[in-house]
């Protein structure tokens, strides 16, 4: 408890060291003083607001003035296709600019209960209005995605966690790129395309940064292509971008075997692939010999509900216990037992949900493999109990 003046100075020193190590000493001293004054002030005011924090009162005025939790406000919602929409979100103080291709964790209250999910940021950083965008496709049994696309309204406050993910372009980007996407897998790639193409255009467009981009995108029909009109316009504007749309309802699925026809030099390009699990698996097999040229991003859960016997799970920090079935992820078991479980993508990618195992073993629901030793950090969203389990959550 207690962000006291000491914390304020600690933070100030941290800021000073971090900034000074980049050679920005004057900026550093300014930031350090600001941080110390602010920290000291918060510490002093905290004596007046105990047991609450000053921000608990400040957020009565503006919900985004919340220092310990990052929040955002949905400013606008634009329909992209019949079942996809882009949400423009204004993040509160403390948002760190993302890299194109990264995702953000977002916590949404639906019927009073909070649900966390991860979505790719669909635009490049540095929007003039300071907002970020995510583009969500409503999946049939997706509680959160359907809510965001169909029910959410501008003005809604959402919880955010900083951007993360390694599905990003290196700096400088390679000369020749191949993007292979399907469905809402276009969203991180759209952010990358803008990062690649439009900064060059902004500088006069004389010297594009990238020699050659090929985008192979699959969607059921032309109308289902998220950002379809924009992608086509970009293709018309930038000769170095080539777009191939595969309309799978009429043309069937795109197979790795189709690659040489569509992009004869695919093997010389660095590829970024984002789509359903089956597509990623095929890509990984296809690029087996040169995996260093392949980057993949999952965006939909595939949880084989193959489970074993399950067991009694004890959440040591919150002091709750529950009987979990062998096919139920610890995350769900904990949430149902009223534990404040950290969570994110719910499919074993983002590692937001990890907890330290104190005793017992867990089954990885993706592979069926049983593992775990005391002290291991396990991903609760893809791990189920195998016998009695204790976890520090």
């Amino acid at each position, binding site marked *: 408890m207690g962000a006291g003046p000491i914390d304020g100075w600690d933070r100030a020193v941290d800021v000073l060291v971090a900034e000074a190590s980049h050679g920005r000493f004057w900026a550093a001293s300014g930031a350090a003083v600001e941080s110390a004054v602010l920290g000291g002030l918060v510490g002093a005011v905290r004596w*007046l607001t*105990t*047991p609450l924090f000053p921000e608990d009162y400040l957020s009565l005025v503006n919900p985004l003035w919340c220092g310990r939790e990052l929040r955002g406000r949905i400013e606008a919602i634009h329909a992209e296709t019949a079942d996809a929409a882009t949400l423009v979100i204004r993040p509160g103080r403390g948002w760190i600019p993302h890299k194109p291709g990264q995702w953000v964790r977002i916590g949404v209250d639906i*019927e009073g209960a909070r649900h966390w999910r991860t979505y790719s940021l669909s635009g490049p950083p540095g929007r003039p209005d300071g907002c970020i965008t995510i583009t969500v496709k409503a999946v049939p049994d997706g509680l959160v995605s359907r809510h965001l696309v169909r029910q959410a309204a501008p003005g809604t406050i959402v919880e955010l966690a900083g951007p993360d993910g390694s599905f990003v372009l290196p700096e400088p980007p390679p000369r020749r790129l191949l993007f292979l996407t399907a469905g809402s897998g276009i969203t991180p790639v759209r952010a990358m395309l803008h990062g690649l193409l439009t900064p060059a255009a902004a500088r006069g467009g004389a010297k594009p940064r990238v020699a050659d981009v090929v985008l192979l995108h699959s969607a059921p029909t032309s109308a289902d292509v998220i950002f379809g009109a924009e992608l086509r316009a970009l293709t018309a504007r930038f000769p170095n971008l080539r777009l191939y749309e595969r309309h799978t309802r009429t043309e069937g699925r795109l197979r790795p075997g189709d690659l040489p026809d569509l992009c004869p030099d695919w093997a010389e390009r660095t590829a970024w692939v984002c789509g359903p699990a089956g597509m990623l698996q095929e890509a990984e097999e296809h690029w087996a010999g040169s995996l260093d040229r392949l980057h993949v991003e999952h965006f939909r859960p595939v949880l084989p509900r193959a489970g074993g016997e399950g067991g009694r799970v004890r959440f040591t920090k919150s002091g709750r216990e529950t009987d979990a079935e062998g096919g139920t992820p610890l995350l769900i078991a904990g949430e149902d037992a*009223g534990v404040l479980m950290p969570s994110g993508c719910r499919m074993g990618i983002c590692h937001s949900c990890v907890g330290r195992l104190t005793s017992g073993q867990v089954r990885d629901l993706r592979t069926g493999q049983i593992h775990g030793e005391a002290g291991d950090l396990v991903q609760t969203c893809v791990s189920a109990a195998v016998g009695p389990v204790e976890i520090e959550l």
Partner: protein
Amino acid sequence: MATTARLSHADVEEFGRELDRIRDEILASLGKKDAQYIRGVIAAQRKLELGGRVLLFASWLPPAWVAGTAALATAKILENMEIGHNVLHGQWDWMRDPKIHSTTWESDIVSPSAQWKHSHNVVHHTWTNVLGKDRDLGYTLLRVSPGQRWHPVYLLQPIYNVLLALVFEYGIALYDLEVERIPAGDKSLKETSTQLRAIAGKVRRQIVKDYLAFPLLAGPGFVPVLLANLTANLTRNVWAHTIIFCGHFPEGAEVFTEEQLEGETRGEWYVRQLLGSCNIDGGRLLHLMSGNLSHQIEHHLFPDMPSNRYAEIAPRIRALCERFGLSYTSGSLARQTGSVYKRILRLAFPGPRQHAEPAAPPAPDLQAVI
């Protein structure tokens, strides 16, 4: 006495199943409206507190002093009862909002949340009105049941009960320490000193806030602000004491022995919670200000059900009790308070002789409530 003596085992279990059905139905229907309710109460409480403290900067004006003190006392009561008590019961955990969660909440009373949750949620709600087990006041400090052996010290209980009301939050904090377990070796001195330090930390913060920082900020208004804050804290203490005593000690509340709890089924547990609790009749304001402990019966049957739903199920519980011939004790605040004080006064003296053993059922399935 012993209403349950008339009930067959099958009836008790059917009664329990009916209650389970009500519980499942309500918990399944929790949603946006409930979330808006608790967020609304929290926001109103914070605004009221801010308003009160601001008004007190003009506390040299008597009307400002009165209005500021009233606002602050009201805010402290809301924080303590409708918000703190119920959040710490886990009533709002289903929202998964870390700001309104039993594992993160810290209340504006001197008991550290973790200690309070143990002695209240675990000990009191499990062992409700069981002699020698329910430590929820009374059973150690006060004589509230003829089943407790009389001692001359109880002659003073009408007086020290009033003193206890004034410093109620400190009483609860010390009570949570369970010092009587130390001599028997049930509890180590080290654990006790760790707990004491946690209490001291909260006491220090409250004293600095209410009796130093805000008075100092008021400058020349130091004394009136200090007195206002003191009044608000005392008011909250007396109010909480009154509501809590009205919940378990008026005429009609039954007391149980440990033997009765052996092999207690879920149905029997429900019956004991019902017979050991008393409601206070009143309007919505009373329910709000009492943290819905005016629905003490509903609260004891379903301690983790959001409090805003108790009023809705109360008529159904009452009807259920009528159907099974179980007593459902309720009365006005004045009547219940009078009844409590009468009992404390009467039991300060020896006797009365007990005629029959109270013959209610009980014991656990206790895990089900913890």
